[in-house]
């Protein structure tokens, strides 16, 4: 099957799970601090647990090569912090603003456009000079078991190849820690009309594994998909050649379609417009910060957190930590100061 059709189908599945699970990493990270509510955080951690085992299994069976994101310390530190701040202003993470377009949120659409355009500018566009400020990737030549994708012998850093041990060992230890946290961290009460955190977490993890088996080079992502959509749609194309939309670009289209269908079916679709026009400015600024952050860091909350943490990639661990800081800082600034 054409990879683009596969991307579209995986995207639809992803969109349905996001909508029915009301999955938002911005809420997941914020609620833990602001209201001590861990419902969505536990859902996300469970998805990461499922993927940690699934990605490893797929790699050990030889179905995929693990392909962690390049570690550029400053890019993940600065990019993570800006992305974390941006998603609070935008009212959603990269996947959140994408699927909410399908639910009818005009603010999500505005945020996503500014996010996609800024990320495109940073990745190979007029803002790409900022990447040279961030420095070069730090790689290793260790490739324990040959499970990692390598380029001229260089492999992007993960905990396992840093220690040069079989990635199973690190994955199992990480999975056990996650399992202990999930069992002993008391879940905040919530009466849900969609997927509960257990069903939603397992479904999200499975979609991630399907995505890796389908796309091969990486599991789910958002930033690269928006960049592909904007760049391809507005490029000067040689129309004698196939139009270069890719797997991830079509995945974005799929997410919006899937979320729309799920919302329609659940009678939750509705065009929603904020009363105060200033909100549009706020979400646009949020989208720009997110695009700048995810564009330079090599991924967003999906590329780095949902897909990158299960690799135990050093880049994704650092990005996640600084996204938490950025989010909590902006939550404090906007909502908790007074």
């Amino acid at each position: 099957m054409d990879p683009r059709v596969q991307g579209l189908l995986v995207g639809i599945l992803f969109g349905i799970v996001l909508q029915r699970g009301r999955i938002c990493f911005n809420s997941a990270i914020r609620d833990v601090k602001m209201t001590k509510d861990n419902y969505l955080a536990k859902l996300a951690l469970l998805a990461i647990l499922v993927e940690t085992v699934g990605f490893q299994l797929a790699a050990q069976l030889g179905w995929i090569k693990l392909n962690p994101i390049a570690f550029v310390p400053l890019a993940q530190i600065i990019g993570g912090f800006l992305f974390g701040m941006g998603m609070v202003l935008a009212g959603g993470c990269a996947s959140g603003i994408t699927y909410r377009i399908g639910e009818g949120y005009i603010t999500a659409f505005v945020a996503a456009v500014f996010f996609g355009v800024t990320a495109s500018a940073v990745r190979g566009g007029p803002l790409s000079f900022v990447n040279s400020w961030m420095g070069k990737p730090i790689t290793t030549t260790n490739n324990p078991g040959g499970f990692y994708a390598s380029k001229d012998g260089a492999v992007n850093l993960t905990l396992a190849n840093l220690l040069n041990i079989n990635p199973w060992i690190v994955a199992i230890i990480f999975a056990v820690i996650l399992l202990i946290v999930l069992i002993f961290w008391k879940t905040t009460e919530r009466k849900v009309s969609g997927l509960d955190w257990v069903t939603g977490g397992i479904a999200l993890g499975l979609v991630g594994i399907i995505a890796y088996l389908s796309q091969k080079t990486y599991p789910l992502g958002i930033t690269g998909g928006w960049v592909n959509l904007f760049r391809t749609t507005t490029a000067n194309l040689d129309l004698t050649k196939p139009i270069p939309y890719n797997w991830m670009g079509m995945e974005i289209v799929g997410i919006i379609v899937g979320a729309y269908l799920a919302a329609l079916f659940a009678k939750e679709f509705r065009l929603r417009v904020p009363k105060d026009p200033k909100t549009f400015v706020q979400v646009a600024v949020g989208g720009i910060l997110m695009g700048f952050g995810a564009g330079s860091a090599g991924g967003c909350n999906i590329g780095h957190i949902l897909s990158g943490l299960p690799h135990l990639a050093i880049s994704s661990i650092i990005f996640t930590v600084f996204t938490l800081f950025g989010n909590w800082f902006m939550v404090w600034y906007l909502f908790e100061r007074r």
Partner: protein
Amino acid sequence: MGNDVKPTYTLDERGEVCPVPDVDTRRKLKEMKSGEILEVLIDYALSKERIPSGVKEIGGEVISIEEIGPSEWRILIKKL
């Protein structure tokens, strides 16, 4: 069930961005007196499901959640 209760204050949070409905509800509830009722109009499903546990911590209790339209709810919260 909520129809016979008369709200003291009303917040119209329809169209607001996440998590503004939650934050506004919490802020209002904090300054209310015991026994007063807050009515929140909301069109964001995540907040609708999150508010009941969120207000408990600050001395509120959700009395009723009523669907008043497609993806539109009226939540009544009592300050304890």
